[in-house]
Every structure is written in structure tokens, then in C-alpha cells.
């Protein structure tokens, strides 16, 4: 059954509005990069970001070693500084997805939050990306940290 164009337009506009509302709205990384606090020599920095708007309604918390450090907001990023050591980054939707990684002193790592098909809802999963890809992908994303 064909949907009249006049009826489809408000629906599409509504969907776009919902998508926009679900996306991050803070300053872009490229705008605030110079104002980020410098990383101390005995610490490490993890940038966590979600570049896609797919599954925008699904925004699980992101945990590092069990502590909530942020949310998986589409087009958003945040960062945490931690001492060197072993870490587990976890997202929970209808399943738990974990990335385990090791941090060396002074190191900066990039963790992308991807989305895959789920049974009821999509699954948000953390993946480690190399520095070049991570620093490039994060440029246009919006800060959602505290």
C-alpha cells in the first residue's frame, strides 16, 4: 500500500528530529582539543566514542572495571585518565560486551562503540582502534563528559 507523500513527510521529519535529539550536542573535539588538560606522565588516557547514529535510542552506560564512566551517546565522546594497568570496558544491553586492554604509562588509547544486530535491541560493543583511526574519527564528535 502506497503512503501518500503528504503523510510521509511529517513521519520522516519526526524520525529525523528524534535522531537529532538522541545525538550528542556538546562542543566538538576539534574545537576543544587545545583546552583538554595535559596527560600526566604517570597516567594514561582512554577516549571512548560512538561515531554512528545507528540505533540512536540505545545508549547504554559504559563501565571501566565496573565503574560507570559515561554513556554510549551517538556522535559523542568522552575520556578518562587512569594509571597504567589492566582494564575492562563494558557495555550492557540485552547482553554484556567487554573489551579487555592493557595501558602503559603515558599511553592514549581509542575505544570505539560499535553497534550490531540484537534480538530485541541492538548490541553496543566496545572495540580497540589504532591511534590514527581513533584520532581521525573523533575530530567531529561532540563532548559528552562531565
Amino acid at each position, binding site marked *: 500500500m502506497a503512503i501518500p507523500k503528504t503523510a510521509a513527510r511529517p513521519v520522516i521529519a519526526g524520525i529525523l528530529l528524534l535522531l537529532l535529539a538522541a545525538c550528542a550536542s556538546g562542543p566538538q573535539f576539534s574545537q576543544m582539543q587545545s583546552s583538554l588538560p595535559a596527560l600526566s606522565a604517570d597516567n594514561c588516557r582512554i577516549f571512548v566514542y560512538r561515531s554512528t547514529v545507528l540505533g540512536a535510542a540505545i545508549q547504554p552506560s559504559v563501565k571501566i572495571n565496573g565503574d560507570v564512566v559515561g554513556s554510549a551517546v551517538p556522535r559523542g565522546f568522552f575520556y578518562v585518565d587512569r594509571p597504567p594497568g*589492566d582494564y575492562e570496558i563494558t557495555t550492557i544491553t540485552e*547482553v554484556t560486551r*567487554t*573489551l*579487555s586492554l592493557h595501558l602503559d604509562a603515558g599511553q592514549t588509547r581509542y575505544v570505539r562503540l560499535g553497534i550490531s544486530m540484537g534480538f530485541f535491541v541492538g548490541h553496543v560493543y566496545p572495540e580497540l582502534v589504532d591511534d590514527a583511526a581513533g584520532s581521525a574519527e573523533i575530530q567531529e564528535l561532540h563532548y559528552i563528559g562531565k
Partner: protein
Amino acid sequence: MRRAGRPSSTRCDGPEPASRRRALRLLVLGAVLVLGACAFDVIQVRQVPATLETFSGPAPEWTLSQDVNVRLREGFSTLLKSGTTWHAIGRIPQGDVYRTSDQIVTVEASNVYEAAVVLKADVVVGFYLLVEHTFTAADPEVQIKRTIRSP
């Protein structure tokens, strides 16, 4: 079906099969949901504990001469890129353990684990999972071409 000693009326016989059908549907739906939920978490990387002994002398270093795809029995394969330089971080019973800063090395199934390559002579025998301190075997083991840099 009518049974002896039971009052016969279409009012009593009618709803019973319908409710059974509904119950059956719910049962099937429940089973599908349970199985579906389980299916997302069935792929686990098989791991055995491994104690890493660090090298006391200078750490061997080499460069990979061609791309290598290493598969595990479970999960996704891991690509080791040509031109990456690897340095030894220690030894486990299964072989020597090497890391690189030229690419991300992870082992991935339902979860993702940062890893180092385990080599025996010129053969990748598996991965050492850095956080879990475990070994997971390659299947099959993969012969590599490399240029030894030191020592």
C-alpha cells in the same frame, strides 16, 4: 473429544483447545527468546592459563614480511600486517610472546581481548591475552616470513 462422566457441551470443549494453543504459542515464543538471548553469548574464546616469564637479556625483534591471517577455533580471525615490527615481552610454555606498537592486536569472539602473538620458531601458535594472562591456540598454526632485527 467427549469423555465418559463429563458434561458435554460445546461451551466447555471450545475454549480449552484455544487456551492450550495460546499456551503452546507462549511456550514456543519463550523458548525462542531464551535460545535467542543465549545465541549472542555462545562464542567464547577457549583459553588456558599461562605464566609469562620476562626476558632477562635484550629482547628479540623482527619485522613481518607479509600479511598473515590467524584463525582461532572460535570467533574471528586476526590480521597481522606486513611491515609491523614486533619485540619480545617474554616467554610462556607455548612459545615466545611478541607485541607491536604498529597495529592493534585483539582476539575477538563475543568479547574482545587485547593480545600478543605467540611464536615457536617461525610459526604463530596462538595468542597471549594480556589482561587475562591466558593462551589461546591458533587453528591452524601459521608459518610466517619475517626479518630478524635483533639480537
